């Protein structure tokens, strides 16, 4: 009995076989693309990460085992850029809190809701390079808009936003929060609209206060969205590069604005240490992989069932 079942399973009818061949042909393009531009480069990066390869010398002839990784993990510049990358992530909870508050306001179905959502979303669709250029000018020490306003209000000259080792981080966090806020608002708004209205009505009958309704209905029911924003922002946060390159010169004073990807770019394309750069890429891939794994582990929690 079981034998015949197997035969039925593996032997497809000519019709089904024909369908399968066509289907494989139809999905061939993205898979060839994946093999050429993703799988092969990843394998290559793994190999090159163990070599003192510069692109000019021989890759295989300069294999050095884990030397690159040891060099990276003992390089103060690497740890500095890692720390900066994490400090920039202070912007993530900030953006989420503002995003949720604004979305809750929007969810009151006020007039002009759509226009206001658009206004908050404009920075998201704007060219990153263009707005980074704009903000570099806003943060300009001598003539920038921000310091002009500070001078106008307080009479004192504002900080050297992009030149100071600490202020540059504040500036970048302000910039990134501004650029990304619209996404959190739209995601939270969609999440809030999915919360059934009768939950609130039932809570009102039970005499729940506004805070209680927020704490025990809204917050748990939109937790999937919160989790999604957190994970995608963390993954994005480890890949920050363009704003650093556009807004600062050489990664800022004493490398104070540089991120992991900036460090990678610097080593690979400014110093020509391609093998070393690949090793940084492998470390970055491991970090992203861990975040993704956490995401998958708790995914069932954020797929809401009502």
């Amino acid at each position: 009995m079981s034998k015949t079942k197997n035969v039925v399973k593996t032997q497809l009818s000519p019709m089904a076989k024909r369908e399968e061949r066509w289907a494989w042909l139809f999905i061939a393009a993205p898979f060839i693309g994946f093999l050429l531009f993703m799988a092969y480069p990843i394998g290559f990066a793994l190999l090159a990460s163990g070599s003192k390869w510069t692109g000019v010398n021989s890759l295989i002839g300069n294999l050095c085992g884990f030397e690159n990784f040891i060099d990276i993990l003992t390089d103060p510049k690497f740890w500095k850029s890692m720390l900066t990358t994490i400090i920039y992530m202070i912007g993530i909870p900030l953006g989420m809190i503002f995003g949720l508050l604004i979305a809750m306001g929007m969810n009151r179905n006020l007039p002009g809701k759509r226009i206001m959502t658009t206004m908050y979303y404009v920075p998201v669709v704007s060219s990153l390079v263009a707005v980074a250029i704009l903000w570099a000018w806003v943060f300009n020490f001598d003539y920038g808009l921000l310091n002009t306003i500070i001078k106008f209000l307080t009479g004192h000259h504002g900080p050297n936003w992009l030149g100071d080792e600490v202020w540059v981080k504040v500036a970048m966090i302000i910039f990134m929060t501004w650029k990304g806020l619209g996404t959190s608002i739209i995601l939270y708004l969609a999440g809030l609209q999915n919360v059934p209205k009768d939950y609130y009505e039932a809570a009102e009958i039970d005499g729940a206060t506004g805070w209680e309704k927020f704490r025990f209905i809204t917050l748990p029911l939109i937790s999937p969205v919160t989790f999604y924003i957190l994970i995608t922002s963390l993954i994005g946060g480890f890949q920050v590069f363009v704003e650093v390159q556009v807004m600062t010169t050489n990664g800022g004073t004493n490398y104070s604005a540089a991120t992991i990807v900036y460090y990678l770019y610097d080593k690979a394309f400014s110093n020509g240490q391609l093998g070393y750069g690949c090793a940084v890429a492998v470390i970055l891939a491991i970090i992203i992989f861990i975040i993704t794994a956490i995401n998958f582990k708790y995914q069932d929690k954020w797929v809401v069932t009502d």
Partner: protein
Amino acid sequence: MSTIMTKEKEVLEEKEMNRKKVKVQSKRRKSTREKVVDVIVFVLLLAGALIMLFPLIYMILCSFMTKNQILSGSLTLIPDPVLIGKYSEVLSKGSFFNGILNTVKVEIPVLLIGGFTSSLSAFAFAKMNFRGKNGLFLALLATIMIPFAVVMIPQYVLFTKLGWTNSLLPLIIPGCFGNVSMIFFLRQNLYSIPNDLMDAAKLDGCGYFRTYWMIFLPLMKGALGTQLVLWFMGIWNDYLAPTIFLRSEKLWTLQVVIRSFNSYYAIQSDYALIMAASVIAMVPTLLLFFIFQRVIVESIAISGIK
């Protein structure tokens, strides 16, 4: 073919019905206290939206100012006198025009060929039967998680070896193999179309490619359009890949050009010119966003809920 026609009609009618259903909303009368809160919330939200837009408005204002006004250090926002010369100055620069041309040269083949390969494989994944369908789809989906920074060094070496870095091919060819997030969205969209349509086509002896081209492609027009608009914006705003892959200045895409303007003209303190260039670089994506904002916002929201 007649069975297909009637099926198609049914599907469209059903879609229309669903749309109408969504529009029905429960309307509840608001108390005076709630109305007062509404007004306060509205004012706060509007103030926030204006603060978000202010840097962009300032950018436009700056592009019309004289150098003296920009560097005066006093808080003046209205250009006096209004100078429109910077825009014609930017547009008359060969490198700027060339940048736009290069970006367009990348956009057209990628959107045409990539849109075709993506929709074709989405059709196969959603409507055809073949072994390993789910596994292959998940494998493809997992590649979204791989950051570009991880594969950029090997890709750079690959493109150099192929001799592509003296052309726009490194930006064009990978895109032609399709876009995974687009495949994901189109597959999702195709699920809402009943399988009967597929069966009817099979009964009528309609070939698989013809079924895709004549029946399903027209049905996913809307979703395909939205995804193409998003992809257009992504290519238009891309900066990292062009900076790494393009050797010669003649090949620079628009974003690389405006970034080079920023470093070059900042030394001359010609901020009006820099702002004018950035404004022009932002206009196409912003226009597209304003036209398609409803569907774009919807598709962003879906990504968070799914």
